[in-house]
């Protein structure tokens, strides 16, 4: 009985709005930025900031999408392929069908939501392992991308949309605003809404969620659909930025989409962490990627470094958790 009281007073300082972990991640982010500015003088230039923020816009959106799924204890490794599919469909509609941009973008979002919902439905209906199912679906969606494009690059996007990918507003790239909007929406969804509470509940304990009357399958399918739509958003923005669409788009997003939330303290087992963590994790990845380039390190080594950071972050998380208990 009394141990409850002791525990709580000890933890009080660490419980502000979803865990003190986020403070740790924030400190890590600041330290990395300080080190970066010392090592590479160009780091703090406004030109470089533009580059970082644009990278962050894309990684950030997929990280938020994946972060939501990880909160449920789910994962979707086909997110990059869904992004590519949405970008390709949207580009095709704009270039070949000359569809109104608003309609084409809506169609792209719908494709993403449907692709995600298909993943979620297969996983929850037959109670399958989400990793295995989405590895299969990764191949399905990538194959579709190749089939639609026939391996060729689609060009000829109208100016109205390319400004969304390449334009700037008050010196800040437009995709950054879009990412910020998506972030605020998902933050609100996960922290303030009924759906968000159910999401965390299912992530904490599917059985307990069922017992209090939550339709856990529904909650999970909706999350897959939202994640798919967000991936679609990122995929379309990338097309607008590149002024073209091709089958391989989004393939490189798999690692950062999982790494960012994990670095930001979202546990892959579900129920722990916040969307803030996904954003901060994405920021850390974007900065590190940038520093590697500035430092003149071989670009191909970037993958080695990002991969190593994920592994270190997971290990550190496990160690601090163990110490916290002992």
């Amino acid at each position, binding site marked *: 009985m009394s141990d409850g009281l002791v525990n709580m007073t000890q933890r009080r300082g660490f419980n502000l709005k979803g865990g003190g972990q986020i403070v740790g991640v924030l400190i890590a982010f600041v330290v990395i930025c300080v080190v970066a500015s010392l090592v590479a003088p160009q780091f703090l230039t406004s030109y470089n900031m533009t580059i970082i923020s644009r990278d962050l816009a894309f990684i950030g959106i997929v990280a938020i999408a994946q972060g939501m799924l990880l909160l449920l204890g789910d994962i979707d490794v086909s997110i990059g392929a869904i992004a590519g599919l949405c970008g390709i469909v949207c580009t095709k509609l704009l270039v070949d069908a000359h569809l109104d941009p608003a309609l084409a973008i809506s169609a792209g979002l719908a494709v993403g939501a449907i692709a995600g919902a298909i993943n979620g439905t297969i996983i929850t209906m037959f109670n399958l392992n989400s990793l295995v199912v989405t590895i299969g679906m990764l191949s399905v969606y990538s194959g579709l991308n190749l089939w639609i494009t026939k391996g060729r690059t689609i060009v000829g996007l109208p100016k109205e949309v390319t400004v969304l990918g390449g334009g700037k507003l008050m010196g800040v790239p437009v995709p950054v605003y879009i990412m910020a909007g998506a972030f605020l929406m998902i933050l609100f969804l996960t922290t303030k809404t009924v759906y968000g509470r159910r999401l*965390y509940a299912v992530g904490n304990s599917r059985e307990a969620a069922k017992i209090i009357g939550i339709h856990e399958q529904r909650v999970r399918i909706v999350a897959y659909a939202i994640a798919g739509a967000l991936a679609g958003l990122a995929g379309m923005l990338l097309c607008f930025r590149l002024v073209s669409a091709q089958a391989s788009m989004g393939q490189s997003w798999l690692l950062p989409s999982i790494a960012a939330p994990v670095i930001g303290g979202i546990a892959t087992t579900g129920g722990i962490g916040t969307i803030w963590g996904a954003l901060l994790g994405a920021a850390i990845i974007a900065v590190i990627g940038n520093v590697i380039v500035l430092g003149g390190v071989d670009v191909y080594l970037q993958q080695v470094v990002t991969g190593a950071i994920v592994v270190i972050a997971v290990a550190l998380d496990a160690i601090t958790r163990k110490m916290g208990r002992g």
Partner: protein
Amino acid sequence: MSLLEARGITKHFPGVIALDAVDLRFERGEVHCIVGENGAGKSTLVKVLTGIYRPDEGDLHYDGETPPAIGYVPQELNLFDHMTVAENMFLPLENGVLFRRKELEEAAQPFLDDLKMTSAPQDLVRDISVAEKQLLQIARALASRRSDILILDEPTASLTATEIERLFAIVEELQARGTAIVFITHRLDEVMRLHSVVSVLRNGCVVGNSDGKEVSEAWIVSKMTGKEMDLSTLYRPRTSRGETVFRVEGLSGEGFEEISFELHAGEVLGFAGLVGAGRSEVLQTLFGMRNPTAGQAWFDGEPWVFNKPARAISKGVMYLSEERKAHGIFPHMSVRKNVGVGLLRDVARLGVVSSEREAEATARIIGDYRVKTAWSETKIMNLSGGNQQKVLIGRGLMANPRVMVFDEPTRGIDVNAKDEIYRLMQQVAEDKKIAVVLISSEIEELLKCSNRVLSLYDGRINAEIVAEELSEERLLSSIINTGGASDATAANREDAHV
């Protein structure tokens, strides 16, 4: 001197004495039955004998140079389904480089023959029958240790009458060969059948030992019960019960059959029975967590639709799981969010949750049910078991339920908190006229709290005991099914397993 002798074995756990100066002797070629209620100390004793626990006091003596080899066959099946019979017998295998399948299968065969098993060494375990699996566990215990002592923990739980006979024949053969058998069981008919030495455990003490005399079922029951139970404070609702809320007829499903009963507003209806008797399954079926195979139910006179928990909750039926940690709390969420997530209709508008309303509801629960927590933002997993339980009960009551099912509500909860939970159940039945169902393995709890007790045995109701007839002896006899009801259920068991 005996093959193995336990002298003065005492084992403490925080807050309880699991074993209190236990003296027992195990002889070659003897079947020794150990009986006792849930929590009497049987499993702790087994763990001390097999060396899993170290006793705090007392020690084990043996007559030879080396301690006797002890084979242990656990109650639940503990096999590798996708591996062969032979592999299961000899895992983890001796160190070496190559795995010689043929040799292993040849070595397994004599043990299978000994137990008259029909499976072949190369059969996959997932393809053999439950009874064969049970026998395989025995074969494994014999093969791996060449056991001098074989401990069988409730070995007949999943066997049919014919299979039990086969098991007994094997036990007798092993006995004739000089193996000491320790037989742990709840079933007194089996104890009688085995003509064995009987030791009765109660609250960690050996309260009875047959010492070579023939004993009767009545003697065993009298030893298992006792006079020390403190029934001075009762928590039975004192107000008269109200209208029928649930009427259940002929309900069958996985683990139970032909269950019929009525549940009234304002009463506490106890469900007694051994672990695995089907109590939780019956209520979980009503609640929508499992599917019925037959039978009907009426709620307020209307036919009850067996659906999902969400529907049962919308009708005012709540279920508190016995697995509080796994199926009750959301461990990494704050107390406030744990409360809020069960009351989303009340704390949210247009899909947006109001933290203030959540906090208000939480504060009310913390105040009303005296939950000990410094603030509502702490993760619920940092609360003690009793306080977690009070939060869950409080949350359930806030939704103004008609029926509340408490499944083992005091498991893992300390003594003081237990009384508070009993008082709560009484209050909600008396003041709010809620129909309370109490599923419990503790006889004392059922006696203290229930207006009426239904006893389940092997998935069927074998007794209904009203308050005036409630006594420890009566309840225990029903739970272990001695006396009048036993013939009927024995016949039923045969049907159930065919």
